[in-house]
């Protein structure tokens, strides 16, 4: 397998209350599965899916919370170096919507300034139990300058669209920044991952 089989690689991080369907969204997108009533995903750090957009291979590395959101104990390091955040709530759960400002505060504190945030209302297959109207969510996302989408991981509604649109935006943003930004001062996140660095000893 070639190591360089893609043109872009982006880290996408999911956040939102427990039980809103974050893992289901990732599973649906990366594996086409909808596992009903599944528990926490043991041993899986992030999922990978490579998509092709306008002839370019984009590798998406999608990170889940590993259950740390359940008791509001997400590590700050989880947010570091994310290119995009998917902030998810459950349209049938008012509480998960009311918690959004709290999540936004965490984003503001720990995520990069340049991070793209998408608001996702999941579980539209349960429309008859809807507690959060589309209009309210639209108003909220507009006020916060977020892109907004409603999805159903179960019916696979808008799931592809969510990730593909996001990938498009990430590419165009990456492009813009390369154009504007010549090589200059050190950038955040330019640190190295230690397993990558090579050896060259004294002598």
């Amino acid at each position, binding site marked *: 397998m070639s190591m360089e089989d*893609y043109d872009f690689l982006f880290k996408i991080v999911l956040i939102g209350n427990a039980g809103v369907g974050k893992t289901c969204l990732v599973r649906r997108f990366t594996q086409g599965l909808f596992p009903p009533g599944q528990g926490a995903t*043991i041993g*899986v750090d992030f999922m990978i899916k490579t998509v092709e957009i306008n002839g370019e291979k984009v590798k998406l590395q999608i990170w889940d919370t590993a259950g740390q959101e*359940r*008791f*509001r104990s997400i*590590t*700050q390091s*989880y947010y*570091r170096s994310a290119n995009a955040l998917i902030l998810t709530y459950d349209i049938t759960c008012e509480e998960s919507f009311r918690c959004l400002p709290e999540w936004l505060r965490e984003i503001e504190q720990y995520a990069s300034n340049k991070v793209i945030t998408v608001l996702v209302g999941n579980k539209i297959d349960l429309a008859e139990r809807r507690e959060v109207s589309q209009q309210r969510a639209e108003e909220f996302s507009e006020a916060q300058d977020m892109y907004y989408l409603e999805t159903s991981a179960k019916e696979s509604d808008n799931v592809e669209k969510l990730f593909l649109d996001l990938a498009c935006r990430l590419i165009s943003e990456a492009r813009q920044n390369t154009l504007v930004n010549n090589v200059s001062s050190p950038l955040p996140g330019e640190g190295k991952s230690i397993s990558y660095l090579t050896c060259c000893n004294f002598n």
Partner: protein
Amino acid sequence: MDNRLPTEFDVVVIGTGLPESILAAACSRSGQRVLHLDSRSYYGGNWASFSFSGLLSWLKEYQQNSDIGEESTAAWQDMIHETEEGITLRKKDETIQHTEVFCYASQDMDGNIEETDDLQKNPSWVASSTLIKPLDSACLSEEMHSLYVSSNEVPAKGTPENNGEVTDIAETLVKEEYCGYKTYKHRVSDGAKDEIKPILEDNSDPPKRNRITYSQIVEEGRRFNIDLVSKLLYSQGLLIDLLIKSNVSRYAEFKNVTRILAFREGKVEQVPCSRADVFNSKELTMVEKRMLMKFLTFCLDYEQHPDEYQAFTQCSFSEYLKTKKLTPSLQHFVLHSIAMMSESSCTTIEGLKATKNFLQCLGKFGNTPFLFPLYGQGEIPQCFCRMCAVFGGIYCLRHKVQCLVVDKESGRCKAIIDHLGQRINAKYFIVEDSYLSEETCSNVQYEQISRAVLITDQSILKTDSDQQISILIVPPVEPGACAVRVTELCSSTMTCMKDTCLVHLTCSSSKTAREDLESVVKKLFTPYAETEIDKEELAKPRLLWALYFNMRDSSGVSRSSYNGLPSNVYVCTGPDCGLGNEHAVKQAETLFKEIFPSEEFCPPPPNPEDVFFDGDDKQPEPLGANTIIIAQLESSEGSKNLESSEKHLQN
């Protein structure tokens, strides 16, 4: 979603410092059901890093902490059965003392700082730039002190006004940010000073000395990640090995420390330590270069040449160095900056061993043997916590534990009772020692660490790049005293705002942190002030803000000195004073082997890219060793590319 904690676990871990977090990850990785708790609202305990406002709240918490008396035990007493007894845990943390804050940066609050050339003519500016102790720190430290001496007494005078002051300032300033404060620039042109400032580099664009105000520090507060313990990772050290082996390294990024500095005869110099450094050094003469290279090459395999040092095994390393035809400055470099040993106590063998270790770590990742984690040391425990969570560990911050429940007959701990009165059962309990009650610790003697955190306006050794990460050992003035370790971080480590440096000073305490460290601070820095600037003072970096505190060092405490702890309760210590993280890693591994002798310690996890699910949603299949090697290669390749895409995205 049920928000109550589950009640059945294999291992309950209390405290999220580095050793506890490594242990939690190791237990979870080996299939144990782990509950990991911390009574604080943040990860890391005394290993944490804070934003500027976070640090101010941390300080405030320590003060408010002092007002809380020990509550009665009645709350949990009736939940204990007849066959059981309870061991109370401590409610307040007493590991931090003698906190003192000094603000030197201008605290101009009326927001009239604009991009203008004649700020110096503004009289209010000059007036406000004299030394200010905004927190009434003298009073504060006295209180902390009295608390320390008689820790059961609630201080007579509550000082809510004082306590609130710092954050109030912060809040006011933050509010100002939203009132059209944004237009002002960091680089305030300051012609008058540029003329007298020695310009070290030959640059057509003369560097400007930046004026950073307190309000800017507050406004840019989230750019800071201020470590409570200042440590570095030895590139051949145990922590690096563990991070790579366990793949936890994928959660963090690192930068190489770029310079080793020495302080000699009142001057800061760069220590040449790699072969390239030695040859490129402008300070060393040709003869010195040859001498140093010869000596360092010998140190790399000194065991092979016993005749070279055998006669000196009874001598101190510094005496031995005198016989090696090294000039005084080279002797200083080798003793203090490379071996990092004290003059009086280090034997020849110890010195040679330390020098060899330094040289072996050199060049693995870069020009010095040390790495620093981006966003601060506080990231590291969190990375292990993430690993624990990925393997099913349950996390809950802000969760206090009232007591351990011990079965009288077996003498084993069987449960904890949390602050909600809920009983949580487990087989093993790992407790960070600051949670243990005074009664449990009555026979324990502690050491102390003296710490200072400084925000300064430029590096202690200016070069053409302002993005340096430096370590400096300042030898003690009086023999027998402790050397002070100084670590200077630049903004690209993501631990401080642009145009500032974050400086950490550490030594083992003999007095309060300020008494131990202030003399070194004065040697290296000058307080920020507009008046009475002479040339020499101006060459030094200016102090914008300073914090001193003492942290308890329990690293030398043996398990047997605690009273009445059941055998299945394991104790982790707080941070030690050393530069590396070897103590914490060793401790975690030792305890893990004690609890689970047959389990492997933090083996590599399967690579997410190699995990396949079938339709039945089975657990990932175990992967062979070959797959894992490939996995490691791939993930490292991934992070490289992640970096490059990030470079496009940011800025």
